[in-house]
């Protein structure tokens, strides 16, 4: 592993994470992430020729019966937004 995160990568990660970080925040974040990852380097020592455990207990394709159930309803779903228009959520410009 031994990864060092560059300023450029830090900026790219912030963009992917949709965080509009200031320059100061980016600088501090780069330092923190490098400190954390350097402490985590010990995981390289472990021989991991095993399957990953995505859950602590085995879970396999749990599905429920496909039947219609009561849902929240349009009015309640829209009750907590400031951005709505004629029964829809109103979002920012996409294109």
């Amino acid at each position, binding site marked *: *592993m031994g*990864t060092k*995160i560059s300023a450029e*990568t*830090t900026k790219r*990660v*912030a*963009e*992917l*994470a*949709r*965080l*509009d*970080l200031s320059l100061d*925040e980016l600088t501090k*974040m780069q330092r*923190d*992430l490098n*400190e*954390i990852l350097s*402490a*985590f380097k*010990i*995981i390289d*020592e*472990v021989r*991991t020729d*095993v*399957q*990953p*455990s*995505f*859950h*602590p*207990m085995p*879970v396999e394709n*749990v*599905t*429920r019966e496909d039947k219609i159930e009561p849902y*929240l309803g349009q009015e*309640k*779903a829209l*009750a*907590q*937004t*400031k*951005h709505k228009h004629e029964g829809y*959520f*109103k*979002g*920012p*410009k*996409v294109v």
Partner: protein
Amino acid sequence: MKFNITAREFIERSRSGDLDYMAFAGMMMDELQRINKKYNCLREIVDIRSHLNIEPELHGLPMSVKDSICTRGIGSFAGSRILEGYVPPFDATAVAKAKEQGALVIGKTNQDEFGFGTFSTNSGFGIPKNPLDPSRVCGGSSGGAAALTAALNMPHIALAQSTGGSISCPAAWCSVVGLTPTYGLVSRWGLIDYANSLDKIGPIGKTVYDVALLLSTICGHDAKDSTSLDHPKHDYTTFTDRKELHGVKIGVPKEYISGLDSDVEKHVWHAIKKLESLGATYKEVSLPMTKYALPAYYIIATAEASTNLAKFCGLRYGLHADLKGNATEYFSRVREQGFGEEAKRRIMLGTFARMAGYKDAYYTKAMQIRTLIIKEFKQALKRFDVLAAPTMPILPPKFDDVKKLTPTEVYQMDVLTVPANLAGLPHLSVPVAKMIGLHLIGDHLQEPRLIEVASAFEAAK
């Protein structure tokens, strides 16, 4: 005080009609206001005087709920400014079950934002103080829940939640009992997720009986949570009467008892000897994977958190801003404003760990390490009924000292609580001295063993 009684006594008196509810509820409101001024345990207090619910089996027993667990009609902000103003139109399954059984929600407890912390200092709202020493933190992330349990000398149970130690840590540091159930035993539906493969809802209480009582109420399969276990419901309070521990085999993991604060070490060994005097036998056991649990946990937890938190974008509920700029600009601006520093750090770390080019070295590797940790625990738990260790390696730090810690030093505090959480094993912290807890870890679904050992210890104290 007239109502300085245990939850058990409260239920008995309510059942027999020997309790003046209006007087009780009035005093409860006064006490909550008084305690909150001193210790900041609750983000919101709910007035119970107007809607008393005295249904069996809990007969109106007051229950606080961690802010990250959804409560119908009561704000649920998960300690985050980005969710400020969010009032769920539904109850989490655990809350619904407790209410159906007669629990009364008295308020939402303060916590680290989304559970991101060990001291409850990463809160977008109030920072709770330790009632045993207000210059010290009360632990996190369910800090408000544990602090309230410690400070309130009236019947009360707390619904809390753990991802990597958020029930055990504050329970130990506030000298109360915290039980983190097996992953999947309690439905996560209605929990504002931190990390789906690690989150567990569980109780904090003054006594082992209290946590056993709340666990019995909230456990059980839920079709709304695909990771919920189909395990027969138990009345866990039936395991609280044990007074001796003959035949109980206890393992003490070597890796958990080195580098401890001397007070913690002394009191934990004293507690283990106490278990021995009650008839249990103990042996040291080695769990060499322990040191890899912390990095594996933080990689998995932040990777999952970074995807869970993607939905908070200032559009449907919580924090909003003016709809200026394109979608990416709008979402990034709202998120920058709404998330605290630690939330941003964990989102960044988790996003990085999942990125193309790094995913195998971090995310997948951490999941493989989890496989090895589960295997190591399972092998040890074939030889022992429970593992016993300190809950936290040190006493709760003072607020001034917390400010000096780097993020990595803060993460190190979780070294003893993270392994069992990563493996989804049930664990219980029981107080052994002021601000010190004994941690009992059992195999999957072995909550009865933990409750028996903790009850016998509690009775002998």
